[in-house]
C-alpha cells in the first residue's frame, strides 16, 4: 500500500498539481493549508476522480507554536511530506516594509524549518519517511531584484541539505526541489520567458519522479542547472555591477 502524502501549502498551484499527481497514482492525501475551506473543492474532486482518501488540515506555516499540535493531531502520520508553502511579494515593497520582510522569511524559511524539524524527528524515530522541500533557484545567489525571498530560500536550501545529511543514517530521505520560473499565481504579475517557465503539472510530474527515484536535488527544466551554474560563477566584482 502507498504511504499517504502530506502537502503543506496545498492551495498553491504547485500544491494542487501535486495533489492531483499523487491521487492519480493511488496515494492517500493529507492536504494542509491556511484556509482549509479552499481545499474542499479539491478534496471532493480528487475523491470523485480517483477514489483516494483525502483529508484536510488547517494550519499556518508561520504559526510555529501550533506546529507540534498540528502534527500530533494526525491519527496516521503521512509517510511522505512535501513542503510547498512559500510567499513572494515585489522586492521593492518587501524591503521597505519590515512586516513584509519578516513574513517572507517566516513563510519561506523559519516556518518550514520549525515544522520539518518536528516531522523529521518523528521519521527518524520510525526509521523511514520522505521529505521534499520546494526551494528555489533564487536561493543560489542573491540578486538585487529578489534578495529577501532569495536569501530565505537560500537558508531553506541549506537546511534541506543539512537535513538530508543528518537523516541519511536514519533511513529518511530528503529531496530538494529547485524550480526556476513557474506559471503560477505567485508569478502572475511577472512577464516570464515562455521557454524557461514550467507549468504546474510539469513541476508536479518532476517532483513525483524525484521522490520515487529518491533524488537529492532536482531542477525543474534541466537548463536551469546550467543557467544557475553560470550565474553562480560570475566573479562578485562583476556580478555586483550587474542589474540582475
Amino acid at each position, binding site marked *: 500500500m502507498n504511504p499517504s502524502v502530506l502537502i503543506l501549502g496545498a492551495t498553491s498551484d504547485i500544491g494542487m498539481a501535486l495533489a492531483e499527481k499523487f491521487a492519480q497514482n493511488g496515494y492517500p492525501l493529507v492536504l494542509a493549508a491556511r484556509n482549509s475551506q479552499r481545499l474542499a473543492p479539491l478534496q471532493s474532486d480528487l475523491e470523485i476522480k480517483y477514489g483516494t482518501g483525502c483529508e484536510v488540515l488547517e494550519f499556518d506555516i508561520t504559526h510555529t507554536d501550533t506546529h507540534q499540535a498540528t502534527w500530533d493531531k494526525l491519527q496516521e502520520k503521512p509517510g511522505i511530506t512535501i513542503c510547498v508553502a512559500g510567499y513572494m511579494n515585489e522586492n521593492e515593497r518587501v524591503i521597505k516594509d519590515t512586516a513584509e520582510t519578516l513574513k517572507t522569511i517566516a513563510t519561506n524559511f523559519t516556518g518550514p524549518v520549525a515544522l520539518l524539524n518536528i516531522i523529521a524527528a518523528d521519521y527518524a524515530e520510525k526509521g523511514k519517511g520522505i521529505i521534499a522541500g520546494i526551494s528555489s533557484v533564487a536561493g543560489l545567489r542573491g540578486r538585487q531584484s529578489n534578495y529577501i525571498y532569495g536569501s530565505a530560500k537560500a537558508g531553506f536550501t541549506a537546511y534541506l541539505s543539512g537535513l538530508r545529511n543528518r537523516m541519511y543514517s536514519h533511513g529518511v530521505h530528503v529531496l530538494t526541489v529547485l524550480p526556476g520560473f513557474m506559471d503560477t499565481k505567485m508569478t502572475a504579475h511577472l*512577464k516570464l520567458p515562455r521557454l524557461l517557465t514550467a507549468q504546474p503539472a510539469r513541476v508536479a510530474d518532476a517532483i513525483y519522479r524525484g521522490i520515487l527515484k529518491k533524488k537529492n536535488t532536482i531542477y525543474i527544466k534541466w537548463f536551469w542547472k546550467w543557467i544557475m551554474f553560470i550565474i553562480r560563477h560570475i566573479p562578485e566584482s562583476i556580478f555586483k555591477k550587474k542589474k540582475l
Partner: protein
Amino acid sequence: MKKQIANWGNYPRIESDEQTFSFTEELQTYVKKKEPFIARGYGRCYGDASLAPNTISTLRYNKVLSFDTEKGIFECQSGLTLDKVLAIIVPRGWFLPVTPGTKFITIGGAVASDVHGKNHHVDGSFSAHVIEMDVIGTDGTLYTCSPTLHSDLFRATCGGMGLTGVISRVKFDLKKIETSYIKQKQLKAKNLEDILRLFEENNHYTYSVAWIDCLKKGKGFGRSILILGEHAKKEDIPAKFRENPLKLPPQKQILFPFNLPSFVLNKLTVKAFNFLYYGKNLKREINNVVSYEPFFYPLDAIQLWNRGYGKKGFIQYQFVLPLESKAGLIEILHRISDKGIGSFLAVLKVFGRQDDLISFPREGYTLALDIPVRNGLFPFLDELDALVLKYGGRLYLSKDARMKPEILENSYPHLSAFKEIISKYNPQSAFSSLQSERLHITSR
C-alpha cells in the same frame, strides 16, 4: 497577463489582459474591479463572444464538487471541460445529457451558450438539464439560481453569453447508459427533399444530424448523409466489447501543424472533399456500432484543425429557420451554392421545440457552415442575414463575429426582456464582450 487571443474561428484576434483564478473568493474579488471584462472558457465559440480587453479565464477553476452515481447528478466548477467530465462519468454508466460537436468546451461555456447537440429534438438544449447554478454578480455577490430560484437570472444566464455574471458552479443531470458505444445508422439522401423527408421519418432516433453538400447544383442539390444514433445496449455490441462495455475510447490526437494559406481551401478542394466523402458511402444505408468518440467528436481527433482556414480565420455561419420556412432554406442554400463558397463542414439538423429567453434553438432547420474570411464575405453574409430575417429565423451568438445589431434586434423575440434582466444584474455593463458591445446589448 497580456496576450493575443482569438476564438475558434481565429477572427477577430485581439490583445487581452487575461487573468486566472482557482478559488471562488478570488473570482469575487476580481469581479469587483473597475474595468469591464468577460468570462472566458476554452475559447471554442467561433467569434467574439468571449473576447474583451479584459478577460478572466475559468480554466483553473475546474473541480468536481459532487457526483451522485445513483441518481446521475453531477456538480462542478464552471471551468471543467466536457472531456474531463466524460472520463469520470462514462466508466460509471452515465453520459452528458447534451453535448456539442466538440468535447473541448467548459461547463460554463455550455450554459452561457446554452449549447445543443444531435439530440435537441428529443432532449432540448443543455440548460434544460441544469438543476441549479451559482452566478457571481457585478458586486461579487453569489446568486444561487434555478428555474424557481432567482428564475429571471437563471433564464437570462442560459444562453446569455456571460452577460449576467460569471457562472461559478453548475449542477446538472446526466443520461444513463449501458455501454460507451453508439449504434449508428448512416443514410444517403439524393437531394434536399430527400434529406428533409428522412429527418421526418427518423425523428424517433435520439441523435440525428446531416452533412450536406452546399455546392452541388441541379438534381443533386442538397444531397447529404444523415447520421442517426442511439446509445447501444449491452446486447447491441460485439461480444469482444462486452467485457468492458463502458470502456473509455483512446484519446489519440494529431496536431494540425501549421496555418494553411486560405487559397488552399478554394472551391476545388471543397469539391474534392465532398467527392471523397460520398465515395466512402457507396451504399445507401450503413449500420454499425462505434465508440461515442467518433460519433460525437469526429473533429476532435485533429487538434487545432481550425488552422486549415489560414491566418485570416473563418466564420461559422449558423442560423435556424422555422419549419414552415423550407422555402427559405432552399433559397439560402441556393445563394451559397451559387456563390461557391460553401465549406466541407456544412451541418444540417432539425431542432425540436424550445422557447427560451435568449437561447438560440427554436423549432426548425439549422444549418452551419464554415467560410474563410476574405474580401466580400461580410456583405454577402449581410445578404444572407436579410434572408434569415425574412424567413423568421435567427443566428447563433456563439458562432457570430459580425452580425449587425438590427439583425439581432429583429430576430430574437425576447431580446428586450433579456436586456431588462441584464440591466438589473449588470447595470454598469461590467460584464461586456466585443460581441455585446457590437450588438448594443451592453454599452460602456
